[in-house]
């Protein structure tokens, strides 16, 4: 797939290019936001990965410009060393589909990129029985097996687990999760979701030892990360 990569640091471009090429993607690099905008007008890409702090036109400006200028814009991953909660939510709310803080582990980056591409490529895929490491999801029986033992879950908990696993390595907003599972967000507090997440985490023992962890993007949402 074609990935547009914009960053003003050559080291970062090289590092990212090596990851993407290992994943067998075609990479086009841009040194600043201006060039990236021009490239996006001429060419079509399946994914855009861009830095926030770039000369001429910063990442947020490119994001805003994309919302207006490009029809059926490709998914965007914002990559930056800005780690403050407010910065992350600002980027996500501006239209970025995901957000990677620098520095980040090579494997995490590749997992997050594939999650993004997976969703955009075959969002309609449906497996009745899916295996994720130690976890097996039976989507017909609505059961989860952990280490070949069944974990007792409520219907909503299963739906939440299902949603998290399908969108693993992708950041989902609270609103998205609540609308997907509860259909409506009326009378639902963030506490309810927080408590569900917490319960699911402990019931399934979703811990780094088991290859997964749930990551809270404070002020925005959640992400189930796969670890090697």
């Amino acid at each position, binding site marked *: 797939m074609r990935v547009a990569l914009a960053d003003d640091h050559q080291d970062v471009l090289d590092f990212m290019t090596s990851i993407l090429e290992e994943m067998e993607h075609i990479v086009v690099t841009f040194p600043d936001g201006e060039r990236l905008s021009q490239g996006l007008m001429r060419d079509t890409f399946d994914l855009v990965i861009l830095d926030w702090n770039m000369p001429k036109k910063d990442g947020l400006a490119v994001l805003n410009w994309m919302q207006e200028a490009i029809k059926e814009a490709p998914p965007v991953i914002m990559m930056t060393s800005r780690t403050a909660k407010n910065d992350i939510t600002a980027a996500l709310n501006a239209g970025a589909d995901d957000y990677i803080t620098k520095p980040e582990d090579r494997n995490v980056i590749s997992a997050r990129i594939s999650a993004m591409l997976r969703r955009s490529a075959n969002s309609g895929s449906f497996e009745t029985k899916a295996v994720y490491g130690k976890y097996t999801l039976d989507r017909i029986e609505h059961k989860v097996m952990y280490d070949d033992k069944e974990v007792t879950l409520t219907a909503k908990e299963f739906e939440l687990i299902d949603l998290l696993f399908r969108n693993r390595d992708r950041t989902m907003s609270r609103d998205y999760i609540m609308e997907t599972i509860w259909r409506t967000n009326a009378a639902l507090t963030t*506490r309810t979701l*927080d408590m569900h997440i917490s319960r699911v*985490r*402990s019931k399934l023992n979703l811990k*780094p*030892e088991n290859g997964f*962890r*749930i990551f*809270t993007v*404070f002020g925005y949402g959640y992400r189930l990360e796969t670890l090697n």
Partner: protein
Amino acid sequence: MTFRLRLIIEWFIIAFLANAVVITFLQWDITASFDNLLYDGLSETARPPADDDILIVAIDDASLKEFGKWPWARDQHAQVINNIKKLEPRSISLDIILSETGEPEGDKALSEALYGAPLNPEETPSNGPAIFLPLHFVTPGNDGRAFDTILPASPFLDPKMGQKNLGHVNLTFDSDGILRKNNICFQASEETPMWPHLMERIYQNRHGKASPAMEKAVKKPFCEAPVLIPFSESGSISTISYSEAANGTMLADSVRGKDVIIGATAAGLGDNYPTPSSNGSLIPGVEIIANMLGALERDDFITPLSLWQSILISLLPIWILLIGFLRWQPRQILMASGVIFLGLLILSATLLYFGFWFPPGPALAALFLAYPLWGWRRLQAMSYYMGRKLRELESEEDSSPLGLIQKKSIDLVGKQRDTLDQAIDNIRDLRRFVTDTLSGLPDPMFVINMDNEVILSNDILNQRIDSNLVGGDLSNAIETMVRKEDRPSVWQYIEASDIESADVIIDQEEIVRMVDNYSSSYVRFTSPRGRNFVMRRVPLLSNEGEYRGYIHYLADITALARADSQREEMLQLLSHDMRAPQSAILALLDGKIDEHAKQSIANNSKRTLQLAQDFVEIARMGETPFDGEELLIDSLVEEVIDSLWPLANERGIKIDLSNISEGSFIIGEADSLSRAFMNLLDNAIKFSPDNSNIAVKIKNMEFGKTTMVSITLEDQGNGIDSDMLPILFEKFTTNRGNEGRAQGTGLGLSFVSAVIERHHGSISADNKRDGGAIFSILIPESIEGES
């Protein structure tokens, strides 16, 4: 024109008017009616007794009835005189004008009766009584004379004495028609003879010399010296009827040795006049001249003061009052006026007692003119002055910074009252404005007066030092505000900036220069509560430049001082803490790059990164207000453990989480809390031996009404040096002081403590009995629906 000058001019006008009133009133007798009334009243109180040596033979109504209508035949008079003569009176005077001749027989008989018959030149004057006859004046006289003298007809002139038994009987009336005074003598001009009064003739006959009054009167030109007659009680002089004399029925004793005066008393004869003693009725002319004789005898004529004397006496109290106008209070002036009023009346009465008449009317008139006039002018001037000042105040646009509510009255007095109201409001507003402004100043300040007493301190100062300085003195204030170590330098500054003399008057330029000077010097001190201040003091001067006290301006530079120390910290961080790992990386890159070197480079790099993030987070916390959201602390701690799992796992360290809380939500800042727990856990991992356990416990704890979330971290390391325990959470304390592993950031734990404090929580550290450190954190739980 100034208020003062205006007042002086008005004073002069009033003084002039008062003097003019006194002089003109005296000159033209304008207050005569009042003065006469007073004189009559006063003379009523002291009527002299009647002269017993006088006998009036009255041609009364009974006589008229008996002898028919007037004039009577002169032989009638002759008979009466002869009758009287027989009884040997001292003298006989006729108050009957005999200026014309009548029937020759009658005239002859009368002449004989008067001077004896037959008229014999050889005969020496008989022992008979002296005879006095009246002459009268025609006014005005011929040839420009004041009057012409009409003598009795020739048959009635004394053949021996010539004109020496003649006297005038003229009467002088006051402007109110009442007879009060008379002239002892008359002289028409220098060429004409001087005529004494008929009574003076009788007096001279009695005593053989001129009366004292006569002696005084002749000294005046033309004998012009009228004197006031003290009248005896009306009717008190012995009187017999003419008819009695004619019939010879009177008692001999009543005539013998007396001065007999024959005159008309009958109302129909017209010789009756009003006098002070007549009480509204009339007194016969003969009684009036009889009174004169009494006065001559007693020598108690009342002399009117001359014009100049009266003027002097009148002006003296008036001038006392006029000078008093300028010096006394209104109440004193009123009292003085009363005293002068009474004094004038008493003076007049006293002088009358001593035989002088002073008319107090003009002086009283002047008093009654001057006092209210002055009072009015003073009031007017005050009103004008007030009005002008009020207008001035009104026209000073900037005098009321808060503006004024315009009131509207229709009348002038109402307007003035409104203006005054506004002026007073204005001053109140202004005072309020100044007080509020000072109180509301963003910088602390206090003011002392000349006696070093604190008279004002604003709210912000009271708040900063948590006490009110007002009421205390300067040294009190210094003790409250300044910690002990800094006091000497503060006192040194205060003494250096004191004005040497309190009386010194400083002009405008000097003030500007001084303020410049003062604002460039200051003193810096720390309060007992650890706040840092800079203090300047500026002298407080009155409008005239007199020293009144000092204003002390303070600036709270605590934040600045903190910023200073933060800059120091940053320099420390950059110069050592960040440089060290970077140097290590460079050193490692110089050698062989194997897996171990790569790992070391990564670790050093991560340390630098963590340091930078801590620092950024600390800076952010210092700058931004607390921005918490409701978050599940269990999840947050769990995710921190997850994120550090690889680090712990690498060394076989197990992190056990035991969560016995039922989902504890707190209001927190996810960023700073995550970093804080990460620092703590990272530390614990760092100081834990390989393959050891780290226990993390979360539970709820009840403290009265509030529920706290308790989070504890226990490791199995060597624990914390006991020396380090008290200062563990201070900045740049290298964690745990373990010199073998001096790789601490120096920021980590102070950052953690700052974060927990920011969440209204608390953190403590201790060593477990079996070794290893334990960190305990308490954060208040949030109640559902609170945020």
